[in-house]
């Protein structure tokens, strides 16, 4: 308030000072003999533009900037309100661009830029066993203990194994994800439970009390946020555990989601045996120790263990990975591709708004010329116009933030993006800053050139012409032309990226998974070992399940087996052929292994090529038999019949006879290359864990309750999970590929539309500008097609230049996404040709409308126009 009063007084003083100057000048002139009127007029002329003098003088006062900003803002808002159509289109265009960028950036910020939500997360490192074949293999407990005792690099090392757990005794039997950890796991992460306590030393050893810790979400959802939960008991995998802690709300497992934490020795596969490599190992580096130093030390340590325990460790070394880089590895490439794509869209959007702003110059030229004539300085006009641009882009970024929030939620909800569970994607101050930074950049980006052009009009020309024709001269046109070329080039690159993804996806869908996915239901269950300790009991349960389910109406066949293709991981084993020379250790061939019963291949519709599949007569006492796939048959017995040959396996250790050859199955997604697979007889190798496949006559999902009840009829406490149709599983396996394709395609289409609008705008403007020229041509006898050619030639020339530039850029850029492609090369000529054709056609269509308009010019009107 005080400031405004000060301003007011200063203004009055300046007015008085100038008035005094004029008065004195008039008096002088009258003394020299001029008449009062003459003296008045001459004094004013000599003084110059009063408004301008005041303005440049005011600028010396400091404060002026702030005040001008207020004026500019008020005026800018008025201008935007006066042109709601222009404002709306500009804001929406910018909001789309900024929103898309904000959504992708929020994910990039959370996943790639922000540290993981743990204290000194940069010290967290995953430690793996490294063998010649695999760089990242799990670790055995004795190896971990030796590392812990002997290393100097880590302040601590902890073990972690996720595995599903049966939760019973409270309401409906259910399955939760267990995190089996060593007792020091939480101290290493430096988090404490919100209720109760963490595990204490020794609780991860056999004979300790059975204790468990639950995550916040489980506490809330399963136990109704019971504040007295600590001290109560739950039944996990058939054993009673006391809950000793509840983790705080924000705590997330560093990787793979976990519901309940248990000491490591409760893991079903846990052994104090150097051969049992099942542990994921998380380490915290001491301060100042780099990952390379730790790697070097651990390698020496591993070499010492290899000498000490040659039977198990001869081949073992170690490999270290920063936790964060390991977690983001699977999504990193896709995120950067998406970020580049949305960046392109924003650039195209900016070019369009710049074009719009320039076009509006036509209608504003007179206004601005007048303001210049009335004494507005050029920087002042530029500032004013820039303020308007910034208002637009700020409004765009506000709307864009809303769109971005929506897009971010959609990205996160799409499970196929598979973000690491430990990151939380939110709109944090960085995302805010990013959105508003973009607003500033875009506002200046699309506003500066038009503002500079507009603020330097040719006064005489414009005023004389009544501001009607007032072109922006050749620089303006060249600027617009380069905008169009850039837009077309950017749209081309995006379309190529999307085109390649679409082609990849089509290839992917054409891949035969090796079984029939339609009308196939799968589920998993795990028998509690204390209830079914004997393998024969386990096998009888599985057979009973098959019998019950097969008896259901509408069920054609049912089978128990081990691992669901595209639903769960699959085991591998090394093997060798006893009738061939034994390869040196570490170079044995490998095959994926599954276990199947007598009905499996028929239920799944996996074709039998040779020999036979398992039969009911295969049993633990009969000689072990295996079924192999075509790829294994072709690779190891190219010219022989494999049926009847012997194969020696490492895991489980046995020698079995090949009884049949079946078709290849894609187990880990359709992009998986063909590889040797072998099936053990589930009857000969029973297990507490089993999967069930059910072939139905109609929609498989309709059978899920009936199938579950058929199992509960045998044991009402038996949890059943992952009840899914095979079609859903396959769909999920392709999910991330499809998602990337869809997002890229949507962005590319958006880019195409924006570019088409840009071309249309520029040519329309050009036609408007050339109305007189066209009129003269028509008056001189030019034909319609001459005019069409005239306009189209310019448009098509620009488009072809843009396509050429886009083509060159694409050739350089698609190599970066070749890792995401399937079945097409990054320079696929069909995609390049098709996209070039598509873009050119759309662009010509955009040229056509203004070109047609040009032919409708009436020569008489066009000439009288002047």
């Amino acid at each position, binding site marked *: 308030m005080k400031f405004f009063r000060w301003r007011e007084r200063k203004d009055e003083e300046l007015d008085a000072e100038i008035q005094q100057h004029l008065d004195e000048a008039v008096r*002088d002139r009258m003394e020299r003999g001029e008449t009062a009127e003459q003296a008045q007029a001459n004094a004013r002329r000599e003084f*110059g533009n009063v408004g*301008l003098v005041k303005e440049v003088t005011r600028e*010396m006062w400091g404060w002026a900037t702030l005040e001008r900003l207020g004026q500019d803002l008020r005026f800018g808002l008025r201008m935007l309100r006066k042109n709601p159509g222009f404002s709306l289109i500009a804001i929406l265009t910018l909001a789309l661009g900024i929103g898309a960028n904000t959504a992708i950036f929020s994910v990039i910020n959370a996943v790639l830029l922000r540290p993981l939500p743990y204290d000194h997360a940069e010290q967290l490192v995953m430690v793996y066993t490294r063998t010649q074949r695999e760089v990242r293999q799990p670790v055995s407990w004795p190896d971990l203990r030796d590392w812990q005792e002997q290393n100097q690099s880590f302040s601590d090392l902890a073990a972690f194994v996720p595995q599903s757990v049966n939760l019973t005794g409270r309401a409906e039997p259910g399955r939760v994800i267990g995190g089996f950890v060593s007792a020091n796991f939480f101290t290493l992460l430096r988090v404490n439970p919100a209720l109760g306590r963490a595990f204490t030393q020794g609780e991860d050893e056999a004979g300790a009390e059975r204790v468990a810790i639950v995550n916040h979400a489980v506490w809330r959802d399963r136990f109704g946020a019971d504040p007295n939960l600590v001290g109560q008991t739950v039944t996990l995998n058939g054993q009673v555990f006391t809950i000793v802690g509840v983790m705080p709300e924000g705590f997330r497992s560093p990787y793979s989601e976990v519901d309940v934490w248990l000491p490591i020795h409760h893991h079903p596969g846990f052994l104090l045996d150097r051969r049992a490599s099942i542990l994921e190992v998380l380490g915290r580096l001491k301060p100042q120790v780099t990952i390379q130093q730790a790697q070097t030390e651990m390698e020496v340590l591993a070499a010492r263990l290899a000498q000490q325990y040659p039977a198990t460790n001869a081949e073992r070394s170690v490999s270290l990975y920063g936790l964060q880089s390991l977690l983001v590895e699977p999504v990193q490439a896709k995120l950067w591709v998406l970020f580049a794509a949305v960046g392109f869209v924003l650039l195209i959007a900016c070019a369009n708004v710049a074009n719009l702003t320039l076009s509006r110059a036509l209608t504003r030229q007179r206004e601005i010329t007048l303001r210049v004539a009335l004494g507005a300085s050029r920087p002042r006009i530029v500032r004013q116009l820039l303020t308007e641009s910034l208002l637009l882009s700020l409004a765009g970024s506000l709307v864009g933030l809303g769109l971005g929030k929506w897009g971010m939620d959609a990205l996160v909800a799409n499970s196929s993006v598979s973000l690491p569970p430990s990151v939380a994607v939110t709109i944090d101050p960085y995302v805010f800053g990013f959105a508003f930074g973009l607003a500033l950049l875009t506002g200046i980006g699309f506003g500066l050139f038009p503002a500079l052009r507009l603020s330097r009009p040719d006064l005489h020309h414009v005023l004389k012409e009544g501001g009607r024709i007032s072109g922006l001269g050749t620089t303006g046109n060249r600027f617009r032309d380069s905008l169009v070329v850039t837009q077309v080039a950017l749209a081309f690159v995006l379309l190529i990226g999307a085109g390649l993804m679409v082609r990849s996806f089509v290839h992917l869908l054409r891949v035969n998974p090796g079984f029939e996915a339609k009308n196939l239901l799968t589920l998993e269950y795990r028998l509690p070992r204390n209830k079914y300790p004997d393998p024969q009991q386990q096998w009888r349960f599985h057979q009973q399940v098959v019998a019950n389910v097969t008896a259901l109406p509408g069920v054609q066949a049912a089978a128990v087996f081990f691992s669901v293709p595209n639903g769960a991981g699959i085991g591998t084993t090394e093997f060798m052929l006893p009738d061939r020379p034994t390869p040196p250790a570490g170079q044995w061939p490998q095959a994926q292994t599954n276990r199947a019963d007598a009905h499996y291949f028929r239920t799944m519709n996996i074709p039998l090529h040779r020999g036979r599949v398992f039969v009911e007569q295969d049993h633990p006492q009969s000689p072990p038999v295996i079924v192999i796939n075509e790829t294994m048959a072709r690779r190891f017995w190219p010219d022989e019949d494999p049926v009847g040959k012997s194969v020696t396996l490492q895991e489980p250790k046995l020698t079995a006879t090949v009884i049949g050859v079946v078709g290849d199955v894609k187990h880990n997604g359709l992009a998986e290359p063909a590889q040797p697979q072998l099936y053990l007889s589930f009857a000969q190798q029973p297990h507490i864990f089993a999967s069930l496949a059910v072939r139905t006559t109609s929609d498989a999902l309709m059978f899920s309750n009936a199938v579950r009840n058929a199992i509960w009829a045998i044991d009402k406490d038996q949890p059943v999970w992952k009840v899914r149709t095979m079609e859903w599983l396959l769909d999920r396996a392709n999910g991330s590929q499809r998602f990337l394709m869809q997002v890229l395609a949507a962005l590319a289409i958006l880019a195409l539309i924006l570019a088409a609008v840009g071309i249309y705008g520029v040519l329309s403007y050009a036609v408007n500008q050339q109305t007189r020229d066209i009129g003269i041509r028509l008056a001189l006898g030019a034909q319609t097609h001459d005019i069409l050619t005239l306009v189209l030639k310019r448009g098509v020339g620009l488009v072809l230049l843009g396509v050429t530039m886009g083509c060159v850029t694409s050739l350089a850029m698609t190599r970066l996404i070749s890792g995401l492609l399937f079945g097409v090369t990054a320079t696929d000529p069909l995609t390049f040709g098709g996209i070039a054709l598509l873009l050119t056609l759309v662009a010509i269509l955009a040229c056509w409308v203004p070109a047609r308009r040009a032919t409708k010019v009436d020569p008489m009107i066009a000439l009288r126009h002047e």
Partner: protein
Amino acid sequence: MKSRYQNRIELLQGTLDLLILQTLQWGPQHGYGISLAIRNGSGEVLQVEAGSLYPALHRLERKKWIKAEWTVSENNQKVKTYQLTAAGRKQLAAERSNWERLTAAMAGILNPQA
């Protein structure tokens, strides 16, 4: 129109300040008086435009080299007069010696035989 003023300001910036300070050395003066003094003192060669003069005066005032005072003139009008401050006097001396060095250097280049 505008650009004409701007060129003058840029051209005269240092020089105009010097001229104003020099003019005020002989006593308080108002804006019109300063412009007259410069015009007459230069034998009508230097015409100071209002668009350069007033920004310069207000700038010098802000730098505290001159200070303004509202007085009443002989014909009973409120008049804003400017006068040199102590800092302004020091600045005048500094700018004068600068100017002399500049003109001496220019002369040396333009008349090499001298």
